[in-house]
């Protein structure tokens, strides 16, 4: 089953002579448990595509379907989009973006409580997730006291907190050395396989995409290597 369908996606910034086409002719889909790598140099449109899929940047034309729902449909309010994002998408960031004043457990539990899970239940499930990602022993540590690799594991746990159908990872290995980067990618593969979540990883490092199901490459807003 396709978790994500992107069809005829185009994003243009500005108007008239000042118009800049950031994305054009983007068509692809991602299945449950599929691991997709999105490659491309800076300015190629990777982040714009991620923003469009994240319900943050509305495309100029085309449509996006996530988990059977066409997003940016008329009548979708900001609140609807935030709720949809919270329930269906997990995010992993380049610089981890953990809330600095929350412990590892609280960072993970926060996402669940935003979804209405009780504090106690959220903390219990957070501990499970941290254990699953082999970081349970640092559950009570603040982000500043964690290494880069540990922070990224907590960030992955947070992305998994609401059991999303789609995980978007924005250069998750950029702040890590090669060894740690490979471990994070291995973890993403494990998650896609075991938890049946589709994972789209934006990266510009070809070494990190070994074993990915799909690899596509963007250049100047278009796919130069289309997903198969």
């Amino acid at each position: 089953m396709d978790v994500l369908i992107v069809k005829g996606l185009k994003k243009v910034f500005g108007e008239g002579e000042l118009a800049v086409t950031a994305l054009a002719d983007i068509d692809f889909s991602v299945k449950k448990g599929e691991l997709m790598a999105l490659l491309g140099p800076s300015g190629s449109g990777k982040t714009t595509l991620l923003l469009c899929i994240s319900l943050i940047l509305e495309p100029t034309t085309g449509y996006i379907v996530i988990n059977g729902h066409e997003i940016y449909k008329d009548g979708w309010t900001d609140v609807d989009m935030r709720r949809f994002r919270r329930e269906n998408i997990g995010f992993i960031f380049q610089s981890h973006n953990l809330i600095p004043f929350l412990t590892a457990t609280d960072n993970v539990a926060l996402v669940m409580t935003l979804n209405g899970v009780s504090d106690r239940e959220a903390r219990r499930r957070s501990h499970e997730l941290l254990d699953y990602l082999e970081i349970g022993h640092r559950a009570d540590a603040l982000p500043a006291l964690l290494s880069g690799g540990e922070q990224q594991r907590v960030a992955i746990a947070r992305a998994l907190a609401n059991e999303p159908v789609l995980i978007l990872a924005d250069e998750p290995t950029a702040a890590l050395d090669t060894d740690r980067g490979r471990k994070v990618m291995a973890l993403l593969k494990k998650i896609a396989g075991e938890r049946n979540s589709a994972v789209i990883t934006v990266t510009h490092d070809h070494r990190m995409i070994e074993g990915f199901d799909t690899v596509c490459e963007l250049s100047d807003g278009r796919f130069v290597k289309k997903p198969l």
Partner: protein
Amino acid sequence: MDLAAKDVRRHLGKFIATIIGVGMLINIVFIMNGIYRGIIDDGIWIIENTDTDLWVVERDRGGPFNEQSQLPRDTYKSVAATPGVAKTGPFITYTVQRGVAGRNQQFTIIGYDVFIGLGGPKRIVAGRNITAGHYEAVADQKLGVRLGERIHLGVHDYTIVGLTRQAVDTNGNPLLYLSLSDAQEVLFQRDNQAIYAQDAATIKKLQDAGYTATQAGQMLPLFSSNTNIISAVLAKLTPGADIKKVRSNIQDWLYLNVYSPEEEIQLMLSGRLKKISITLGFFRILLVIVSIVIIALIVYVITIEKIRSIATLKLIGASNWVIIRLILEQSVSITLASFGFGYGASHLLEASGQFPRHLIFTTFDTTLVFIIMLVGGVVASLLAIWVALRTPPSLALGG
């Protein structure tokens, strides 16, 4: 999950420093309030604590406290003859700066006829009232003298026979009660050399006018200044007397000004106390504004410091309310904790008795400051909330 509380716990030092800083400002607001109420209380204390129905003063003067008033001593006898008046007493008040209790200090002398009793001290907490016509005094504790101590004023020593508490003039200076003649003597007693010099000058003028030295010497007492003056006459009315008629008689027939105690209080409030009230009010408003601006800046800075976290929260789907609550809760927490600090510090200062002025804290003032600060704390967070809500979630993406 209470994000604001967790942030405060994580940055406790920063929040405590902020609370102490803003709390000190609020402490000053409380002290200003206390000074204001204290000044009012001090300013009208002597009026409220003088046993009289009418204050009779020099014509066209707002005396004796708000403006200087001078009357011949015997005026009290003329007022006593007015129909409806039961009893009158002479009253004099003036402020001096003399060496008492080992230090040079300012205090106000009240002179009254100790045998009539009107104008005498109230709130005697130790000792007794003045009973002798001379060389006895009742002083306020603030003057720093002890019961039985002898203090030197002018050319005589006076024994402290009684002590009062919180008997002060409009400037918060302690009161010293003397018999009328003693008070006049302390006020008008001049240096011998000055008297000789003035007498010599008067004799020379008379001689220049054609009088002999003997004649000039005989005439000298006629030219010496009259020191038998008072500031006001205190009048008690007979039961059932028509106060309007009595004051009308005194005003029309004796050419004097008459004030009821309430009018005397109003004179003080609209005269001497008005400017200081406005000044203190102005400073209080400024301090409250400064406190709110500081809270606004601090809340803004701590919000900007976590703007990336706010963007992340928005991206992972947090509602606006989660973000508003985070900022608002911190702003209100800082405001309330600062208010508590300021309240506690000002009351501790008052309780220590080390503050040089009389401080009075009222529930009304405390409540008003609380409401203003609470509203101010909410308003202070608006800028930060506005910035936070405008933060795009996309800020969380990228390096």
